[in-house]
């Protein structure tokens, strides 16, 4: 079966150890996490967004194994084509001269990024969007020199009124 990227969204109990339970299950069952982002959400729960690469039977087994964990309240897969998918990156770019400075600011504007920190030798830019867009922006910055880079991993919601319901 063809390997592709899947987005899995899970509502979990927001308490210590739950992330470990989930990531440990991935390791034990030989699944590979591409990216994972976690943050608090409604009703004392946290939302995990996990991307993995695999075929359909792999993702089906993975979702079932996740659903089995008592602290996972609800888990489902999101269709990448029908979801709002975002990632945030902070990129510290080396600024050797003033031309570079204005170029970088211009590029940041084109990518709807924001300059969030300035120093004589560097600019730090915040950019959000799909992973592809962020990759493209980072590639563009390489010619100036990327000093440091931090990415959140993707987070996502289904388009339209559809939500992950808790029973």
């Amino acid at each position, binding site marked *: 079966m063809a390997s592709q990227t899947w987005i899995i969204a899970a509502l979990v*109990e927001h308490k210590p150890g739950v992330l470990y*339970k989930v990531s440990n299950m991935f390791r034990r069952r030989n699944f590979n996490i591409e990216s994972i982002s976690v943050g608090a959400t409604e009703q004392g729960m946290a939302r995990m967004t996990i991307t993995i690469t695999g075929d359909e039977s792999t993702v089906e*087994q993975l979702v*079932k194994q996740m659903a*089995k964990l008592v602290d996972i*309240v609800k888990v489902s897969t999101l269709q990448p084509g029908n979801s709002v998918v975002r990632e945030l990156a902070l990129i510290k770019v080396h600024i050797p001269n003033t031309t570079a400075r204005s170029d970088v600011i211009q590029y940041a504007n084109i990518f709807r990024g924001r300059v969030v920190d300035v120093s004589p030798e560097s600019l730090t830019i915040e950019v959000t969007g799909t992973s592809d867009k962020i990759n493209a922006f980072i590639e563009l910055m390489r010619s100036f020199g990327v000093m440091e880079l931090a990415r959140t991993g993707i987070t996502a919601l289904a388009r339209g009124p559809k939500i992950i319901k808790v029973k």
Partner: protein
Amino acid sequence: MNMMTGAQILVEALKKEGVDVIFGLPGGAILPVFDVLYDSDIRFILVRHEQCSAHMAEGYAKASGRVGVCMVTSGPGATNLVTGITDAYMDSVPIVAFTGQVPRSMIGKDGFQEADIIGITMPITKYNVQIRSAKEIPYEVKKAFFLASTGRTGPVLIDLPKDTQTETTVPEFPEKVSVRGYHPDHEPHPLQVKKAAQLLLKGEKPLILAGGGVISSNASPELMAVAEHLVAPVATSLMGKGAIPENHPLSLGVLGMHGTREANKLILEADLLLAVGLRFSDRTTGKFDEFASDCKIIHIDIDAAEIGKNVPADIPLVTDAKRGLKDLYKALTELSDKKDNTTWMKRVQELRDLFRSEPEVKDSNLKPPKLMKELRSLLPPDTIVTTEVGQNQMWASLFFKVYKPRTFITSGGLGTMGFGFPAAIGAKVAVPNVPVVDIAGDGSFIMTEQELACSVTEEIPVVVLVLNNRMLGMVAQWQRLFYQRRYSAVELGDVPDFVKLAEAYGAQGMRVQSYEEFRKAVNEAVKSEVTTVIDVPISPEENVFPMVPAGKSLRETITGE
């Protein structure tokens, strides 16, 4: 309610769950609880090694259908439980384990006897939790028993920091708990049930494979009803042994690596497989890709994650075995009268006659298959048999016929040597009025033999039958068959003398050299009021046949001829 300490609350919560026996061993970090247990009516069975407390809890749970409880201290006490908990996890045995822990302020400081048992046991428990205040105890205990005993049953661990045991609070004991991420009751989809029934009725050569789920959900009557309606032969996994009486005309015995020849042959000929309450372990199926590849498969299991994990199902039914089989039987009877499977049953009978008509080998040595058959004829039908792991286990599986569910207790998934003896003690505590016999090998028995002390002092008499080949027999068998008889580290020698060993612990020891002595010894041992070890010397050259080599398909059964 008045103010109570965490320890008092715990013991009260255990009483509310109906716990009347705990297996374990105390230590510093759990002393406040043991101090409260001193005044309680709960029977505490002191083990000599913590691993055995979990195995005893398993034996208790398997024999009785109730949750088994074990309790140990922090650090090494807790880590010694790991093998037992893993064993329970692999075989879905409902146990609740309590561990002491260093005080909350010491956690993470590498204190004396601190171990991160929550981190360690996460992948081997259905659920685990560290208590953070005495107030949480009633809810977490209720939740632990609920989780352990419902859905796909399994082990739950509660870790109790020492100061939560002494902290005082006014407890609130919940009547029931609900966990928002846990919904154990799955009703089978009516349409799927109907489709399954239609498919089953169409099959000309149906075969049923029953697993441990049939036994844990007490679904044997429902299994029999479906099997008899379809006139379908029933094989079992090792964990399912006892789901159908093995003297029933439809019983084929155990399927798999050491399955009966008729079971392993008929699964290759069947056109339809109804698999109930099992996870398609590689020991049952052989090579996954080639298992039942010409069959349509209906798979009933309470755990949705088991469906399609190892073997794909044509019709999945996510529900517990009892409910699934009950609904299926109803659908079958609505659609058709009892089936007529004369041709298929003739084939079943033909193979059975062929394989069972072989003359017994005339040999003055004590032969394990014959010993197993003799043992069966000597024991009452409801006798509980446990096994160790290795050749002894497979001889028992193949040749000791089990007539009732919950009377055959073995370590399937983990294959834990040393399991059988403590499990036998736990089973005897649960069902004191029937004989309990551990079918053992010398290698396994030595691993937990120290529980003879527990068995004798606690007056829990069981019988240990040591098939003594002075070898790690199964490993030796593999080395004999697949490693050119290069016996690397398998020879145990004649040490110890099991008769003297038993006597040293205050138990009874016997050695038998003939079938007649064997019969006499077993008859005496089951009546004995003290644990009896029967040493049965057998040849180190004995193999368990039939056998399917690891990683091969059931087609490649070796019969030893």
